């Protein structure tokens, strides 16, 4: 009789644990193979722009001069093309998905300037250090390291400001 064939599931359902995941009260369990969002190890990035050219959604913007890599998480479709095509393999996908928001904004990562060699810097009073191109990454004038206001300052120099008092 067809009517009693579902009795097993119904009676079992009275005693078994419900299948509902208790999200958002308990955190989500995400398998590690899940393509959630793209993360970058910015220090290894060479700003070649390959990921920007290959992205089908146009979500990545690479600025070679500023050494920045920025992604619009609201346009990213998690296809992992950028991860596959990166020549230095500095991109990876992690299971945690990008969070919703009320405002669309890009997420930008900027490569920090490499550590400066231990060079004594003498600043002559009255001469303002010239603000050269930010974060060129070259080991050129040590004074330019002091004026790298956009990126975090290199370890040996004190934070930029009036440039007073370090020798």
């Amino acid at each position, binding site marked *: 009789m*067809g009517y009693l064939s579902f009795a097993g*599931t119904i009676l079992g359902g009275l005693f078994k644990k419900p299948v509902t995941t208790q999200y958002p009260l308990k955190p989500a369990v995400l398998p590690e193979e899940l393509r959630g969002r793209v993360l970058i190890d910015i220090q290894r990035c060479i700003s070649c722009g390959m990921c920007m050219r290959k992205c089908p959604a146009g979500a990545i913007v690479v600025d070679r001069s500023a050494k920045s890599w920025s992604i619009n998480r609201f346009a990213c*479709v998690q296809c*992992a093309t950028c991860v596959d095509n990166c020549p230095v393999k500095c991109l990876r996908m992690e299971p945690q998905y990008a969070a919703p928001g009320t405002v669309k904004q890009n997420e930008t990562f900027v490569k920090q300037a490499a550590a400066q060699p231990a060079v004594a810097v003498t600043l002559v009073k009255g001469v303002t250090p010239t603000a050269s191109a930010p974060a060129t990454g070259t080991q050129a004038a040590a004074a330019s390291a002091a004026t790298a206001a956009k990126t975090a300052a290199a370890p040996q120099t004190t934070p930029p400001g009036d440039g007073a008092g370090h020798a």
Partner: protein
Amino acid sequence: MGKHTVVPFGPQHPVLPEPIHLDLELDDEKVVRAIPSIGYIHRGLEKLVEKREFKEYVFIAERICGICAFGHGWGYCKSVEGLMNIEIPLRAKYLRTIWHELSRIHSHLLWLGLMADGMGFESLFMHSWRLREKVLDIFEKTTGGRVIFSACKIGGVRRDIEDSELHGIAEILRGMRDEVREITDIFFKEPTSVSRLKDVGILSKEAAVATCAVGPMVRASGIPLDYRVADTSGVYRELNFTPVTTDTCDCYGRCWVRVQEIFASLDMICQAIEKIPAGDIAVPVKGNPNGEYFARLEQPRGEAFYYVKGNNTTHLTRFRVRTPTNMNLPAMVEALKGCDYADVPMIVLTIDPCISCTER
């Protein structure tokens, strides 16, 4: 001569998951004619081949439709590989077949839930989508996505499934067989659902052939048209498989065909898991596509054609998809003639409409 009214159905309607507009000409309560208007999902993505390289276009091709996503990705890759004479490894073919049959199971369970919801049978909708989540968990672990998989690439597949995982998948599917049988038995024996489906939306054998219907629509009218039988390049030859047909020609028959296809697919995947060989999963792709090629695939909704044309550059010049719902819409309009007004949602859902496939 009854009262003649024209009732607009859609594009936004509680029973419709996608926007389609039908103008129903009614004579009292009987539908005399149905005039469809489509175009609400047309994105013109066939034109995007001019802007994306052929290796990246696979991500756009698989987003033609989220339900048949794997099928479109495979169809595009199959047509470009045929054009460039690339022979993919046997393990890749098996993996693609396993994913495609899993996609068929998830699509049919989805359709069953929507069909029951359209009828008002909400508890069956919940049970069938609960079972579908098991299939989606398998997809998540093996491809990285629940709905859009991005698993195919030109030359093979992007990820491998280890043999231990494959045996785990076979165990899950064997356990699912009894649960699916339980809920579908209820669906087919419940007097209310039987009375809403039997002898409703008749599409005779001659009408099915005349309107060129495909898929379960035509298999329920007694014609055993299934591309998997004719596929020479795939692995369906190695799997023991017969197409499911019946000749009731009504909604009940189409529902029955789809449910039997779920069981057939469960069987096929278990067979494929036993026969899968070891080996590579992809071959490198060199050169550019040149010429024309035509590939076919049996999607959950019917037979789909994929045509590509290249001119020896990194961008294809033409990509044309003929999807199954494209052909089933005229058959649906034919089946709507003479039915009751209250049967319209049932008939529309019984062709398993995928309007985003139709309009690309």
